[in-house]
C-alpha cells in the first residue's frame, strides 16, 4: 500500500530523458490542422498544433471540452470522420515517417500494432457479443502469426498484466459480466497486446469512479515502465496529469497555449489561461471564499477569428491580443507559451 506507484516517475529518470536530443522523438507533430466543414461554417478543431514525444514519455494533453484534444489524438491515427472532418495541413512524423502521406492500407497496419488507443468509454471499444479472451486474442492476431491456442494463452497473459483476477476464467466471460473498471482494463489489454510504441489514451479514467481512477492510473504507470510505451494522455483534469505525466500541453480553442514539464506547468504556470484554470479549482481550506473564476465562456468554435482566442476572457488582454495571434515562444529548452503577456 505504501508503494507510491501513482507518482509514477522519479526525477532521475526525467533528467536522463530530457537530455535526449530532439531527433530521438518517437512522435513529432508539426503545425497540424484538422478542420470540420459544417453547413454553418468551418470548425478549426485543431489549428496549428505542434508537439513531440520521446520514447517512453507520457505527455498530458489538457483542455476543456471542444478544445481539440480528442481530434488531435484521432488525427495522429488518421481516424477523423471524413466528411465532415479533414486534416488540411501539417505533418505527423512517427518513427521518422510522415503518417499523413501513408496509404490507407499502410495506416491500417500501423493502427493497433505500433500505435493504439484507449477510448473514454470501454463499452464502445468492446464488442458485447464476444468473449473477453476472444477479443484480446483477435487483437494479438493483428501482429503475431501464431495459432489459436497460443493466442488464447497470450491473451490470458495480457489479462494478467492488467491485473484481472483469475484471468483464465475471466477470459471466458462477456463484457457485461465485468465492472466498469475491469472493462477499461480489458480495453487496455487489447491496446497493449501488440507491444505498441505509442498509446493514445483519450480520457481513459473519466468514466471510472474516483477511487478506481487512482488504481487505474497506478496500473497504467506500471505497464508503461514495464513496456516502455509512450503515451499521449488526453484529459480535462489537472489532478490526473499531475500524477502520471512527464510533460503537459495545455490546449485552448484548437491551439496549444502552454507546454512544459509537469511540475512547471502545474506549480508555476505562465499562460494566463493555465493560471486561471488552476486558480479556479477549490482547495482545502478555501471554504466560503470566492473562487477566482474565469469569466465568460469558451469561444464558439465556428469561424474563430485569427487572434488570441483567450483574449476576451483574459485579465491581461490588450488591443494587441484582440488583433494579433501570439506566436509560440520558447522560454527555455523545455517550455513554450503562446501569449504576449506570459509570465
Amino acid at each position: 500500500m505504501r508503494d507510491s506507484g501513482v507518482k509514477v516517475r522519479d526525477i532521475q529518470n526525467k533528467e536522463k530523458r530530457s537530455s535526449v536530443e530532439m531527433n530521438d522523438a518517437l512522435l513529432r507533430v508539426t503545425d497540424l490542422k484538422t478542420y470540420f466543414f459544417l453547413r454553418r461554417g468551418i470548425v478549426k478543431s485543431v489549428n496549428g498544433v505542434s508537439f513531440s514525444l520521446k520514447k517512453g514519455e507520457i505527455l498530458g494533453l489538457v483542455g476543456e471540452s471542444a478544445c481539440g484534444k480528442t481530434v488531435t489524438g484521432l488525427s495522429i491515427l488518421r481516424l477523423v470522420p471524413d466528411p465532415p472532418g479533414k486534416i488540411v495541413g501539417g505533418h505527423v512524423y512517427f518513427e521518422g515517417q510522415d503518417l499523413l502521406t501513408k496509404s490507407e492500407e499502410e495506416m491500417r497496419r500501423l493502427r493497433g500494432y505500433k500505435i493504439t488507443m484507449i477510448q473514454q468509454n470501454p463499452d464502445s471499444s468492446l464488442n458485447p457479443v464476444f468473449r473477453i479472451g476472444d477479443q484480446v486474442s483477435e487483437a494479438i492476431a493483428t501482429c503475431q502469426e501464431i495459432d489459436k491456442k497460443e493466442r488464447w494463452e497470450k491473451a490470458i497473459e495480457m489479462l494478467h498484466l492488467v491485473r484481472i483476477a483469475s484471468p483464465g476464467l475471466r477470459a471466458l466471460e462477456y463484457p457485461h459480466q465485468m465492472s466498469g473498471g475491469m472493462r477499461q482494463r480489458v480495453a487496455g489489454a487489447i491496446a497493449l497486446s501488440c507491444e505498441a510504441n505509442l498509446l493514445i489514451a483519450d480520457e481513459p479514467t473519466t468514466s471510472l469512479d474516483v477511487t478506481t481512477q487512482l488504481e487505474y492510473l497506478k496500473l497504467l504507470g506500471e505497464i508503461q515502465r514495464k513496456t516502455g510505451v509512450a503515451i499521449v494522455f488526453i484529459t480535462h483534469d489537472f489532478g490526473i496529469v499531475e500524477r502520471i505525466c512527464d510533460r503537459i500541453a495545455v490546449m485552448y480553442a484548437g491551439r496549444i497555449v502552454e507546454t512544459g514539464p509537469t511540475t512547471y506547468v502545474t506549480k508555476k504556470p505562465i499562460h494566463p489561461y493555465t493560471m486561471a484554470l488552476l486558480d479556479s479549482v477549490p482547495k482545502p481550506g478555501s471554504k466560503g471564499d470566492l473562487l477566482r473564476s474565469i469569466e465568460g465562456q469558451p469561444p464558439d468554435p465556428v469561424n474563430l477569428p485569427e487572434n488570441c482566442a483567450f483574449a476576451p476572457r483574459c485579465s491581461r488582454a490588450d488591443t494587441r491580443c484582440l488583433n494579433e495571434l501570439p506566436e509560440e515562444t520558447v522560454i527555455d529548452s523545455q517550455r513554450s507559451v503562446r501569449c504576449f503577456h506570459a509570465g
Partner: protein
Amino acid sequence: MPVERVKTDRVPLLEARNIKRYFPFKNGLFAKVNGWIKSVDDVSFTIHSGETFGLVGESGCGKSTTAKLVLLIYELTGGSLYFEGKNIAQYSYAERQAYRASIQPVLQDPTGSLNPRLRIRNIISEPLTVSHGLNRRQVNERIAEVLTAVGLRPEHAKFFPHEFSGGQRQRIAIARALSTNPKLIILDEPISSLDVSIRAQVMNLLVGLQQKFDLSYLLIAHDLAVILHMSSKVGVMYVGRIIESAPSMDLYEHAAHPYTKALFAAAFPNYSENSEVLTLPGEVASPLHPPPGCRFHPRCPKAMAICKEIEPALKEIGQAHVVACHLYEGAMQTGTSGKPIRQDGAPVLGRVDYKQEGF
C-alpha cells in the same frame, strides 16, 4: 442504529432519521422478486437553516436516492424525515404541497432537466403556477427577479434552452429552483457536467445566493474538493450507508475511515504526502449483495478479522465527528483500543485516538 445527535438549541430545518429505501430486484418468470437492493440503508443527518450538508460518495452509493427521498420522489421504506421539527409522514395534503415548494432540486445535467420545447419564462414559472397563487404580472416580476439573481438578464426569459451555453443553462435551473422561494435546495452534482473553466463561476454563484437568501443546501457530489469548498458538514456514503460524518475542515484534517482517506487521496494529489498513499483495489460493492460485516472490508487496506463478521456502528470520535469503523471502536469511551489482529496474524498498531495517528 441511532446516532447521538449534536445538541443544538435550534430545531433543524431538515432531519433524516434512519431513512431507508429498498428497491425490489426482479427477474425470471413473472418478475419474481429475488432480492432487495438496499440503496439507502439507515441514513441519518441534519441540516440547519443556512447550512450546507455535503454528501460524497461514488456512483451507486445511494446519494442521489437520498436526494429523491428528501424530495418525496420516492417513498421511504423505513425511517422518517422531519422538516422544521415535524414528521413529514403526518403532513396533510396541503402541508405536503407547501413542503414541496420549500425544497427545490438542481440536477446534474441542465440539458436534461430543462424542457427543450419551453421558453425560459415557462420553465421558471412552472413551479410557481403549481404552488403559488400569483397573477401574471407578479409571475413576470418573479421571473425577472430570479433571472437577475443568477446573473442573467430579464430579456432571456423569451429564449429557449438550446440558445444558452452549459453554464447558463445551469443558471436557469438554479433560477427555477429559486422561483418558489425555497428554504432548502437539493444540489445533485450541480457542476460535474460543466466545463472546468465554468465550474468556479457556478460555485461562486451558489455560495453567493446562499448568503443572500439564507438558503440551506443538500449538496451531492463525488468530488471532495467541491464538497469541502461548499459544505459546513459532510457525510461520506458507501453502499447505502453514511460511514463517516464530520464538519468539513475536521474531516479534511482528521479523516478517520480508510475509505474517506482514499477519497481524499483521489481528490488532492498532495494529500498522500502527509499520510499513507491509499489506492483501493477492486470496485465498489454491489448494493444487491453487500459484503457481510463492514461493507468496505474487501477493499480496505486495514481490514481485520472482525470486519468480515460484524458491521461497525457509527461512533463519535470527536466534536460532531462520527465514524463507522472497527479501528475506532471504543476510541471515545476508554481512550485505548485493544490491539486488533489482522487476518495474517500480524498485529496492527492500536489506534488510541485519531488525533495521535499522525495525519
